[in-house]
């Protein structure tokens, strides 16, 4: 029996094992929503399409499965754009389905027409405009394949209304055949042997692990490599959780707001083992002085990342999990020496710290969140100071427990991503560590959380400032706080108006009880923490500086 395009989309999503989708209906996606009405697919109606894209992203980061978001043509599709770009920069597999005007109206500036495949060209791994219902199932299959294999990323499928209505026989393809897409999974054996030899000879190795370790599911292999070689491990923001931060070999995060131990170790190392990381400017600082004494081994699935920003001595293109497994098999157990003592000394001498002066400190709140959740929550962040403190003061031990917009730095990411994460991992406590600026960018998603009773916790570190920008103004613009003082609503009343639980905390002693109450509430909760207004994130590498020359902390 022939199926309509809309039914084919539903069936194809089910074939892909999709359980939850996030979306918002509209004119040109109506046939799909009609088919959805009688299907078992769980749909979450967001309050803004950007929320749908971030929720799909949060779902994908928390579960490792691709997230799916849906929007109508024109403004619905363009509202997805920031979310798609966020996923693209952090290599997160999401599938965006958009309605489009019927084929015969394409290119005529029709009502709610936008060239979304054109618009998303530079921010998707690939995209499709479906012209014929006969191509639909194949393109969906290809989209999932492209999004989830190799270096993952978002894929958009633009589906004109008539394609959703037209009928054809449905057969979901078993395989894909893409001549131009064949990721390299197996690392070159010779290169891996060379790397093993180089690691064996290194006196001061450091492992620099990025988000690729998490997307490859290679934490165990990384752990083994670190323990075999006794190499200290620093992670990027995206790599947080790839290696337990409670481990003696953990250096924490590196880069602009990294730990002194991490930045010193990288700067003095004689061998940097970069694993699934891309030498971002926030990590390297002044590139000429980055790891300037070190040989560099770079393991990544994306050949284009190799040699993009720094010269590499041994490149290995392949799936990290596979490459590390082979590499580990070639390693012998190393013994601790001067380097390991030096690392321990740096960690001892330069811990992250903040001054306690009686006022409510944002770092203290993050520590309390860690305590009360025993480090087992999924922490989602917004962007800015809240994000850095959440990265610094919570000790992550498992992959997929720290979700943050690293590459694009998207304010407003946290709440919708937290909703997506909670949908994907209902048994985990999910906390969005937010700022009072960022939270206002997608606060409407509180309605989504309340509507479906998705019990996420929003912890606002409220300083009535766009804190990170203010910090830069303080340090580099002579304290001229141009347009960074920001007011918000009464967040407690706002939360209550949405039907969530609202709390305000102004004193340190009230932090833990409030968090406890929030976790026990089993409802969406917003806690407005009134924190020290001009607290700064330290240590800090001034922009363009060498990473071992840090301010503060």
């Amino acid at each position, binding site marked *: 029996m022939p199926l309509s395009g809309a039914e084919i989309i539903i069936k194809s999503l089910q074939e892909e094992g999709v359980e939850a989708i996030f979306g918002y209906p509209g004119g040109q996606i109506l046939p799909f929503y009609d088919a959805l009405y009688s299907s078992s697919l769980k749909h979450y109606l967001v309050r803004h399409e950007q929320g749908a894209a971030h929720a799909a992203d949060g779902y994908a980061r928390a579960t490792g499965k691709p997230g799916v978001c849906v929007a109508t043509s024109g403004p619905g599709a363009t509202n997805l754009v920031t979310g798609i770009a966020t996923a693209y920069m952090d290599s997160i597999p999401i599938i965006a389905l958009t309605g489009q005007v019927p084929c015969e109206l394409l290119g005529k500036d029709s009502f709610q027409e936008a060239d979304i495949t*054109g618009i998303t*060209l*530079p921010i998707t791994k690939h995209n499709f*405009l479906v012209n014929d219902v006969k191509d639909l199932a194949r393109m969906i299959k290809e989209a999932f394949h*492209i999004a989830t294999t190799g270096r993952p990323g978002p894929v958009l499928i633009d589906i004109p209304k008539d394609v959703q209505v037209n009928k054809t026989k449905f057969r979901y393809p078993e395989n894909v055949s893409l*001549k*131009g897409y064949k990721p390299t999974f197996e690392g070159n054996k010779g290169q891996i042997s060379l790397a093993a030899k180089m690691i064996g000879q290194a006196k001061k190795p450091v492992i620099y692990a990025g988000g690729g370790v998490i997307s490859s599911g290679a934490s165990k292999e990384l752990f083994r490599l670190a323990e075999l070689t006794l190499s200290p491990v620093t992670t990027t923001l995206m790599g947080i959780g790839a290696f337990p931060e409670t481990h003696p070999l953990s250096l924490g995060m590196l880069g602009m707001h990294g730990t002194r131990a991490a930045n010193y170790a990288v700067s003095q190392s004689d061998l940097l083992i970069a694993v699934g990381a891309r030498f971002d400017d926030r990590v390297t600082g002044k590139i000429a002085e980055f790891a300037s004494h070190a040989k560099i081994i770079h393991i990544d699935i994306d*050949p*284009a990342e190799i040699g993009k920003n720094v010269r590499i001595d041994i490149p290995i293109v392949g799936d990290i999990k596979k490459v590390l497994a082979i590499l580990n098999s070639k390693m012998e157990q190393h013994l601790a020496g001067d380097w390991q003592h030096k690392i321990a000394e740096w960690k001892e001498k330069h811990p992250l710290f903040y001054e306690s002066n009686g006022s409510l400190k944002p770092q203290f709140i993050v520590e309390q969140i860690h305590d009360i959740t025993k480090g087992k929550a999924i922490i989602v962040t917004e962007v800015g100071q809240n994000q850095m403190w959440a990265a610094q003061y919570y000790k992550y031990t498992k992959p997929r427990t720290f979700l943050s917009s690293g590459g694009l730095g998207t304010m407003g990411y946290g709440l919708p991503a937290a909703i997506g994460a909670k949908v994907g991992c209902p048994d985990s406590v999910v906390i969005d560590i937010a700022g009072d600026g960022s939270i206002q960018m997608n606060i409407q998603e509180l309605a989504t959380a309340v509507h479906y009773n998705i019990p996420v916790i929003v912890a606002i570190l409220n300083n009535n400032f766009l804190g990170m920008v203010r910090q830069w103004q303080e340090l580099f613009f002579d304290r001229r706080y141009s347009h960074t003082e920001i007011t918000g609503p009464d967040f407690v009343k706002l939360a209550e108006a949405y039907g969530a639980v609202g709390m305000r905390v102004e004193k340190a002693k009230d932090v833990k009880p409030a968090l406890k109450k929030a976790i026990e509430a089993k409802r969406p909760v917003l806690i407005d923490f009134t924190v020290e207004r001009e607290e700064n994130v330290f240590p800090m590498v001034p922009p363009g500086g060498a990473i071992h020359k840090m301010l503060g902390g």
Partner: protein
Amino acid sequence: MRHILAVLVENNPGVLTRVAGLFSRRGYNIDSLTVGRTESLNISRMTIVVEGDDLVLEQVTKQLHKLIDVIKINDITSEQYVDRELVLIKVGADPVIRGEILQIVDIFRARIVDIGRRTLIIECTGDEGKINAVIESLKPFGIKELVRTGKVAMLRGQKFTSISETKEDE
């Protein structure tokens, strides 16, 4: 240094935009880009002339490879190859000077493809140097209009840029 890339792509809508967009957003300089069909129905071939050092070329090639529609890339610069451009030149040609123009056309083994009352259209193919030379020679007569294709290029002899299984040259 200038490099000539022979790129096989899926003949999908938007593939030219994908390639051109990649070059512009990553700041690579295209000298010329030509695209057309090949011996296979679904495959088009681009010849891209790009300016840059080895590091830039490595990035260009890798980034191009990331495009799903790009099937194969050959940097043929350091190989033996044949390359050609085509130019159409409309020159002012009063009857009194036509003889002189015809001589030049002859020397370059070009052709006259249209004769107007006061103009001629000259067609010439050849490598870039020859095309430049013919343009220079015709300038004194007054070039009214000129259009030239970008470069197309092909490896000599038994080397191939194609995806047919048996003859693949990696």
